[in-house]
């Protein structure tokens, strides 16, 4: 049998099209399945109450607060550091062996398995610096993990600002720092924000890095200081779906839904910042 090239094309497109369908259909099914099953569990009480009866009843408030703390704490550390690194790479550094080393390091940081970050956090922050298993140790660990995301998106956003903007500012007598502060940063802000949201999103969803650095199995109260342990949504979902026998399915689906809402909201936020940026861009 000999196929004409148009028949080949039709077959090839069909195969690729169905492969794509097989890839994306499960995403939609999975997300809607979780929300449908979780909707029954979610109520005001489920959100704002402490867990009771060995987590088999009550709400997940400490886990929600804990994840929020972790995301904010991570942001406080990784955003200034990541933004600084991006400014250095885009505005100060020239292409050299040294900047190439920095870039390779960033790529490698992005590729290190999350559980290895957990080990590192345990070795450096928890034990060596004697911070103990605490919010601060978990935030420091998560910060280093999110750093590459923030650096690369922020650097991309800074580089997208046209060179002429800088030249004009310098020509008007602005210093280099004034140029960055008043001209380049405001122009790049939406892009930077997108990166920050995506980075913190990753921090909020990760479990492995906080396993040994600050996550509490069960803590029916809110953490009282940054040296306290905390519950966190992803770790809580792990615990109730694998470690606690006789866990009502409803609570499991409810927790998964809350975590997904958390993460999807951040994703949508990042996407809208990006499209808003495209519309208001002045170049």
């Amino acid at each position, binding site marked *: 049998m000999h196929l004409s090239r148009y028949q080949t094309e039709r077959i090839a*497109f069909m195969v690729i099209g169905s492969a794509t369908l097989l890839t994306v259909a499960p995403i939609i099914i999975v997300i809607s399945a979780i929300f449908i099953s979780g909707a029954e569990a979610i109520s005001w009480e489920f959100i704002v109450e402490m867990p009771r009866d060995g987590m088999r009843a009550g709400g997940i408030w400490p886990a929600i607060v804990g994840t929020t703390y972790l995301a904010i704490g991570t942001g406080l550390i990784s955003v200034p550091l990541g933004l600084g690194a991006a400014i250095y790479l*885009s505005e100060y550094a020239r292409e050299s062996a040294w900047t190439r080393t920095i870039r390779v390091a960033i790529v490698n*940081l992005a590729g290190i398995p999350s559980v290895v970050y957990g080990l590192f956090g345990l070795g450096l922050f928890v034990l060596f610096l004697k911070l103990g298993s605490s919010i601060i140790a978990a935030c420091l660990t998560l910060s280093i993990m999110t750093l590459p995301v923030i650096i690369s998106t922020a650097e991309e956003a800074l580089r997208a600002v046209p060179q002429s903007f800088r030249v004009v500012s310098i020509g008007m007598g602005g210093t280099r720092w004034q140029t960055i502060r008043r001209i380049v940063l405001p122009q790049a802000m939406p892009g930077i924000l997108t990166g920050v949201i995506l980075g913190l999103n990753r921090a909020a969803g990760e479990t492995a890095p906080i396993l040994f650095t600050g996550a509490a199995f069960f803590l029916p109260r809110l953490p009282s200081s940054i040296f306290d342990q905390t519950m966190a949504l992803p770790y809580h979902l792990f615990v109730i779906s694998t470690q606690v026998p006789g866990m009502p399915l409803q609570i499991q689906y409810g927790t998964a839904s809350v975590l997904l809402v958390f993460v999807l909201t951040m*994703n949508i936020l990042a996407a809208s910042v990006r499209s808003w940026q495209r519309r208001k861009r002045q170049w």
Partner: protein
Amino acid sequence: MNPEDGTRVMTTTTRKSTHRKPLEILLEALVRVAGYSAVVFVALIFIFLMREALPTFNEISISELFSRRWYPIEDYFGTLPLLTGSLVITLGAALIAVPFGLMTAVYISEIAPRWLREFLKPLVEVLGGIPSVVLGFLGILVLAPLVREILHIPTGLTAFTGAVLLAGMAIPTIVSVAEDALDTVPKSYRDAALALGATRWQTIWRITVPAARSGVLTATMLGIGRAIGETMTVMMVTGNAPQIASGLSAIFMPLRTMTATIAAEMGEVANGSVHYHALFYIGLALFLISLTVNLTASAVLFRARRRSERLLS
């Protein structure tokens, strides 16, 4: 626009005309330090892994470290089952994720109409944002029972189940990197092929994909790197039995990966014990594997960029 030229303009002007305030000098110094931080952190991670992992070599002989039994309670520290576990699951995930990921990338970048493209791209990004515990959770509740019933095996918590979910985690990486690569193939290449009478498929298969091949290769490697390092999903759905994978049927049996071993056992070991050091040794091995994968991937990309610069200039 060449960023190099601008930088040079800025440095010369700055030197001539400005009186920098002390605050600016301080801020610029801080920015410089932040710039170096990535290198410092990679070094710190390496140093601290080494610090805790090196005692392993005094405590456990090399031959024992590569023996076939991992049972720390009775002082068996053979990492071979964990290594093969990681290999089997990663290979399985790659066999699923690479073809599906690449085909999806080709579809999104070359075949899909514009409206569909605008819908599919964010959807794949959403998949990338789903936390691994959520996938593991679904694996336990939905996929594992399905696998057990369809294949009539005693448990659905198998390497295969893990591989399917890991593929789901690797696909977003593969799709976005490969799609970027396809996107950067100059439009003139496609126009030329179509003008010569090639069908759209011939253009894709003979021109666009080969022109983007280094990006496609990088996508594959980064996706596989993601799969090796994934922890929570595999810990939840692969059954966690540290046994050596032998033969093809191993894919439908419970296995245990390196990452899952660290995550599952580190919480219970005494700091400074032999077991503790052994887990750090596994972590060091994972670190070195990811370093190798990423260095190779960025070397391929770097070479490809130089080549395309030559071609286009």
